[in-house]
């Protein structure tokens, strides 16, 4: 019997999700023994044309990491969707946009200007910008189109399952692969479509080793400004921690070592918007009934949008509202 086929792909990705798969260490040999790896640009030398030549649905499982921000990412998302029986949004970028989608707070032009001309480490006096088509003496060179907005995988194509995390933790990745192997080997039923795999169904706080007393606070502090108590909840100590608005699954990795949760496992179960959930969570720890004092306390939260949606900007509810051209700071602005 031929082996089930496995594909892994990276779109707008940092590569961390690819490395995370290798973090399962020698278990990768079990993966290789069970699956026929038919496409994995970072590790195996198959080309896009090999995928294009496959029958539709020929790939049994495709782990797709990275967000969708170029026409090429979009093409690959649709291609792999067509060729795969199961398409998994793997990692925060594919699940909800992650770091690449933070650029949704600004425009394509502003992003390109910064990256190719204005950043301090760039010398580009003629402001040469990437073109989708360039004629050269040796022929025509084409580049993918850079999109105005970064999208998650489900915003461009149909997704079967989600594995959150930036990157997903190795033990969770192996758990998912092991479950898939078991399902395919023993003809077991698949979990319902849309299931979040490799994560918990609570919040990060539920896995946190710290003691939470739901204290009220008079001011927020940033992590580099204090030496946090090793056993108390960070939020109780006035440090912005995304734990209450974040899905469990990592085992409380950051909070266990004294770093606040940044929210990489995405929105908590039963909530779609990490930011508005965080507004409710943070507001509830503020110890004041006085508008002016509340404002002063809130001044301690630097960049609420970037902090609350660091990993889920592509799915931010308010991101749907179209406002005018952004000002030079890169923030949107109405006027």
């Amino acid at each position, binding site marked *: 019997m031929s082996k089930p086929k496995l594909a892994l792909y990276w779109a707008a990705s940092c590569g961390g999700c690819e490395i995370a798969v290798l973090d399962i260490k020698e278990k990768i040999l079990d993966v290789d023994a069970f699956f026929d790896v038919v496409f994995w640009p970072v590790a195996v030398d198959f080309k896009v044309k090999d995928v294009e030549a496959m029958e539709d649905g020929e790939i049994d499982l495709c782990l797709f990491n990275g967000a969708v921000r170029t026409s090429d990412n979009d093409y690959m998302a649709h291609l792999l969707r067509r060729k795969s029986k199961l398409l998994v949004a793997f990692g925060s970028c594919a699940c909800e946009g992650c770091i690449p989608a933070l650029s949704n*707070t600004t425009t394509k032009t502003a992003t390109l200007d910064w990256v190719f001309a204005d950043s301090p480490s760039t010398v580009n006096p003629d402001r040469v910008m990437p073109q989708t088509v360039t004629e050269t003496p040796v022929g025509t060179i084409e580049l993918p189109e850079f999109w105005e907005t970064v999208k998650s995988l489900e915003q461009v194509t149909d997704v079967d399952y989600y594995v959150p995390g930036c990157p997903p933790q190795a033990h969770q990745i192996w758990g998912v692969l092991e479950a898939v192997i078991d399902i395919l080997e023993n003809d077991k039923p698949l979990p319902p479509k849309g299931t979040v795999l490799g994560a918990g169904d609570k919040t990060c706080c539920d896995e946190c080793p710290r003691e939470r007393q739901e204290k009220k606070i008079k001011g927020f502090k940033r992590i580099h400004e204090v030496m946090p108590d090793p056993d108390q909840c960070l939020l109780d100590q006035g440090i912005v921690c995304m734990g209450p608005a974040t899905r469990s699954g990592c085992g409380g990795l950051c909070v266990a070592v004294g770093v606040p949760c940044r929210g990489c496992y995405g929105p908590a179960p039963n*909530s*779609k*918007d990490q*930011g*508005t*959930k965080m*507004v*409710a969570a*943070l*507001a*509830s720890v*503020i110890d*004041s*009934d006085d*508008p002016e004092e*509340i*404002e002063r306390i*809130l001044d301690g*939260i630097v*960049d*609420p*949008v970037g902090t*609350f949606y660091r990993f889920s900007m592509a799915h*931010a*509810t*308010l*991101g*749907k*509202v*179209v*406002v*005018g051209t*952004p000002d030079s700071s890169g*923030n*949107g*602005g*109405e*006027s």
Partner: protein
Amino acid sequence: MTTTTEAPLREPAVVSTEWRPRIIAFLCNWCSYTGADLAGISRIQWDPSVNIVRVMCSGRMDPTFVAKAFSMGADGVIISGCHPGDCHYQEGNYKTLRRFHLLKRLVEGFGIDGERLKLVWVSASEGDEWAATANEMAAKIRALGPLEVSS
């Protein structure tokens, strides 16, 4: 119980093509909704672009509701609860107050003018205040113009 204008239907002489803002107002059941109802009973007219959603307490206002209203095409959102100290559930409006200030920062962070989100306290006897709030907000949103939403 209805609270929107109960003026008799009249055929408008000219069909207006003027843009009419969409304002969503979340009113707590015990004070503000009753206040708006009083305005209705007293036949005080207020701007019809304000659409009321009744919630049991302003403290029930999940910030997600506000985000959702904007994402579904609201040009402005009002949250109204009992005056401080008067909340039927004791603390609900203080909770709202704290959420509101942070939510406003979030809304502004997305480039939306903070004036499009308003928090007021309206008691059950303040029909006039409710009408004035609604009219003021409608005028402000008319001046700011529409917000567009991507699909």
